[in-house]
């Protein structure tokens, strides 16, 4: 099981060439915002033009009015007009850049959020078998980091590509228009710059990847030490741990230095290249001025345009890199979206009417997707539970108890045999209508962040506060809830970590009770609780089992003893069944298990 950090690192650096299919699928998310998208491109184009014009105004001002003027009066007016137009152009540029940013963000963010929702919706539809096979961290990063990493391309991709291409072409055209020889002379710096940029990006990526890896090691080391601080202190490990941490830190510093060397080789090199180009303009350009091929203003404009030359090359290289990692993310997202859910309503499925609660297994065989071909997790299981009965499932870990209850809720579908509810094959019914009538309490006692009340209403959103409170009173959990910090309004922190195990258990009982299901499935947790809470739990269980068919994976002796039917499982088969007394009398597996039970408690 890999941790979230590791998955994130491993995936953050995955790269892929952007295939046409992938790109067109990405573009399909932009399509709904086509109009804003095209507008954005238009704004970008105009903004780029406006920027390119800046040095041109300076050149015109210098050449027409500042270097050779005959009439000072006219020159004064001329320079005022040029400056005024220049300023108007700046104002226009400001307006365009506002429009450009807003429209780009609107398109990119909307597309990303659509995708986010699509992923989330799809995750809801996937079956549990998918969640069994896929690490949680991976699924989360699909809906989270993977989509975030599309930001750059979806928001700025087209934008930056057009802006840099246009700037580059524009600068070249303007320079050519002044003098093609000087333009050619300056262009000699482009090949070394392009090569350096390429090399830099290749090496910098590797260097940064190593830094991030080490950064995550630092985080992991810190996290572990914090989470295990009680053990650290109990075993007196402070010195040893500190020296290990210092080593990790030193490696980080070394790697940061390597990256810094790469960056500070490249950036000074870019400066050098632009310096050389300026020197060429200064040297060769001045002789062109002397022989009258260009003007002084054009010479200055050349130098000004030169500074616009380098940005696009760097942006393009950067964009190419983002493309690669975006493609990898996009592919993972689409893979998830293409995963077919296994449990889906059959075409002719009908909603299940309110049921009485008969559950029948008819020669059911079942294995998980991950189980080897030749073994069954459940082997030829048949039983019948009458409405209102409590069925206790007993057996060693791995005997198939959890699989049986998962099949009742149709989290999975059996490979052979039928499962009937009130005589109806569950395949002929809709999944939702079945699950709405089933209440499940698992050992993990999972609660959502939010108030206690919100959690209790989870199974029945339409319930009023009074109904919830009366359910809690029936169960005997009302007092315990009132004793929490803010009673029913107590905020539950992530995964209920601010509650004790017993409290969490009682809340999930109440949640199930409030939903008032016809069939109850309960995986009893046996976390140690104090005697008082234990008492409340046992009373609550009795109430829960009343008037509904209940399946219990039993750990408590009292539960087993009071069950109408006890099913003893071993290696996926039913080995014994009957009531407590019957099974004790027969002196088989159950009798042996029972002995251990009594010894424990």
């Amino acid at each position, binding site marked *: 099981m890999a941790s979230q950090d590791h998955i994130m690192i491993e995936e953050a650096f995955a790269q892929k060439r952007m295939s046409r299919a992938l790109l067109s699928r990405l573009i399909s998310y932009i399509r709904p915002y086509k109009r804003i998208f095209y507008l954005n491109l238009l704004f970008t184009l105009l903004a780029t033009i406006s920027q390119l014009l800046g040095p041109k105004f300076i050149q015109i001002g210098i050449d027409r*009015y500042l270097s050779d003027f005959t009439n000072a009066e006219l020159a004064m007016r001329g320079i005022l007009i040029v400056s005024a137009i220049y300023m108007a152009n700046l104002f226009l540029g400001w307006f365009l850049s506002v429009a450009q940013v807003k429209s780009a963000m609107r398109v990119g963010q909307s597309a990303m959020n659509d995708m986010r929702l699509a992923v989330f919706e799809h995750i809801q539809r996937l079956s549990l078998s998918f969640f069994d096979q896929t690490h949680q961290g991976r699924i989360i990063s699909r809906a989270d980091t993977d989509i975030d990493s599309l930001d750059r391309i979806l928001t700025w991709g087209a934008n930056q590509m057009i802006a840099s291409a246009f700037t580059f072409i524009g600068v070249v055209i303007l320079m050519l228009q002044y003098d093609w020889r000087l333009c050619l002379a300056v262009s000699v710096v482009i090949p070394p710059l392009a090569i350096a940029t390429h090399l830099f990006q290749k090496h910098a990526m590797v260097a940064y990847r190593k830094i991030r890896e080490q950064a995550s090691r630092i*985080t992991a080391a810190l996290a572990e030490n914090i989470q295990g601080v009680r053990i650290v202190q*109990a075993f007196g490990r402070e010195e040893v741990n500190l020296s290990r941490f210092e080593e990790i830190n030193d490696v980080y510093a070394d790697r940061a230095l390597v990256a810094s060397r790469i960056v500070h080789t490249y950036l000074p090199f870019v400066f050098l290249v632009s310096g050389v180009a300026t020197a060429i303009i200064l040297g060769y350009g001045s002789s062109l001025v002397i022989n009258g091929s260009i003007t002084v203003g054009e010479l200055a404009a050349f130098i000004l345009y030169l500074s616009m030359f380098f940005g696009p090359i760097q942006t393009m290289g950067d964009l190419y890199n983002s493309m690669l990692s975006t493609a990898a993310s996009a592919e993972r997202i689409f893979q998830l979206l293409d995963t077919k859910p296994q449990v889906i309503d059959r075409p002719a499925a009908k909603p299940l009417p309110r049921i009485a609660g008969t559950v029948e297994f008819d020669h059911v065989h079942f294995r998980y997707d991950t189980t080897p071909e030749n073994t069954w997790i459940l082997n030829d299981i048949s039983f019948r539970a009458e409405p209102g009965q409590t069925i206790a499932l007993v057996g060693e870990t791995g005997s198939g108890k959890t699989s049986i209850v998962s099949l009742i809720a149709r989290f999975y579908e059996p490979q052979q045999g039928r499962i009937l509810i009130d005589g109806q094959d569950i395949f002929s019914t809709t999944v939702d209508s079945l699950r709405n009538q089933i209440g499940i309490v698992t050992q993990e006692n*999972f609660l959502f962040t939010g108030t206690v009340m919100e959690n209790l209403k989870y199974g029945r959103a339409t319930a009023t506060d009074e109904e919830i409170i009366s359910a809690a009173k029936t169960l005997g959990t009302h007092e315990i809830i009132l004793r929490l910090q803010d009673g029913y309004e107590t905020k539950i922190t992530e995964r209920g970590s601010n509650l004790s195990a017993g409290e969490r258990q009682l809340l999930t009982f109440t949640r199930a009770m409030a939903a008032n299901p016809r069939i109850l499935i309960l995986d009893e947790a*046996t976390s140690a609780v104090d005697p008082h809470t234990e008492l409340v739990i046992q009373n609550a269980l009795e109430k829960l089992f009343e008037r509904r068919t209940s399946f219990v994976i039993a750990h408590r002796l009292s539960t087993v003893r009071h069950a109408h039917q006890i099913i003893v499982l071993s290696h996926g088969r039913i080995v014994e069944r009957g009531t407590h007394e019957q099974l004790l009398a027969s002196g088989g597996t159950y009798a042996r298990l029972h002995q251990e039970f009594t010894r424990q408690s």
Partner: protein
Amino acid sequence: MAKTADKHETTEAPKKGGFRSLLLTLKFLGRYPGRVAVCITLLLINIAIEMTLPQIIGNAITNLRWHMEWGAEFPRLKYVALFLTLVLIRTTIGHVLGPTRNRLVQRTLNDIRNSIYDAMQRLSFSFHDKTSSGELISRSTTDVWRLQEFFFASLLMAIDITVALIATIALIGIISPRLAVVTVATVIPTALLLGYYARKLQPQWRKVHDLHGEMTTVVQENIAGVRVVKAFAKENAEVQKFTRKRDVYLDTMMRTVTYWSTRVPVAQFIFGITLPLVLWLGGREVIRGDLLLGDLVKVIFYLLAIGNRMGAIGQFTNIVQNASASAERVLEIIQDPERLSSGHKPLPAGGGSVVFETVSFEYRKEKTALHDISFRAEPGKTYALVGPTGAGKSTLVHLIGRYYDATGGRILVEGVDIREIDLDQLRCSVGVIFQETFLFSASIAENIAYGKPDATRADIERCAKAAQAHEFISELPDGYDTIVGERGITLSGGQKQRVAIARAFLMNPRFLILDDATASVDSKTEHAIQNAIRELSAGRTTFIIAHRFSTVQHADQILVLREGRLVEQGTHAELLRRGGYYSEIFEHQLHR
């Protein structure tokens, strides 16, 4: 309803003391004064060269015009050579300065990180109780990364911006005071505006960030709780919940973007008009003959140099703001007073006696207080602590290893007050098995040898055998070298517990503290654990927080706690005879 809305507003706004804390962190830089001086010197040289380059270009243009007008000598090669030389020097400095600064900042940050790490592992449990591990992790990672940004920025960006701005304006002033006034008139409002917008924007971006976090939380919970979602057939409701979060996020995001994209360009626009203004006003001076055209070109190039830095002002404001809040949180850990000071006496020899003399412990209201607890624990005996949740059982046992300090009375180990005993020695004499077993991401062997890293493999195996863990460990793919914990394979609750028992075994503690809670394990495992614990507690003074009567019955003494007070004490038989609280719960349990 209003209450919940308020809670969303609690974004981490920088506190007032933040900026002072930030300045305090600069002290860490002071450990390397030589390197700081080198960095600053190189930076200043670089700025000087940068300021010289426009002079060369401008002078060349002036000279060129004179050459054309009245045939003045135009030493073309001299200009080119001078220009190239300066460029080369600057390139070299850039190449040296970057890594030098990097090394300096990284060293400083290592110092900070190491101090945090050490502080955290030495802080008393009171600190860890009130601060969640997530909070601590984010302080020691995110907050430190923000400080790293700040160190990089403060070391160059602040100096660079200030010096370059002043120098440029001065240089423009020498050329033409009027143009310098124009520059000052636009640069100052631009800088102020950019700083102002950055400050305004920061809480907005933080809110966007928080909303993004909320969206992620929904996803995470949805996936972690997928069984509950499916069990209640709540898929559609979950999608609606997510859609709501998404809409709020998108809205807030777009509002922030609108603010950002309209305001920040305004500031840039104000600075941008400097160029046309200079072209106009400077142009007039040129026409009048008060200013050389070459000098006007110099001013234009200087303005470009400032322009490159204007964008950095907003960025710098952000970094300082972020780092201020972070610095405060980081310093809080490093300078926390809740660190326990170790005593100086060695742990006296003995069989393991503990005496509580009218011990009381008062902490915050969430933690159970203890009042006036007195008892004596004899060497080698087993003491069971019984009582409802929140009675103070675990607080009491934690006082023995001095994970907290008692606030009243005293605790004697082998007749010596524990505050006088060397803390490491004291703690090494107390073995603890907590309710939730924490294993580190390391091999099983390393986990068992956690308290004694130099233990031999034979020792480790011996202890694993005693803890009934050898059998299952041998069946793992890599045996004792199998990696467990966060990044390794997952052990079952029962297996983890046995590894923890082996870990305690190897330390061979004089005192043993057990939280007798078994996770849901099948009866065979349960049996194995019970045997292992019996083995481990033999010959050690043992304190068990008991949940089951089967455990309690075997104890030499039972201490019954209620609401922080020791209400009954005696053997099982004695307490039953007495007919108090203990016998009451016992009867209750029996009748189930």
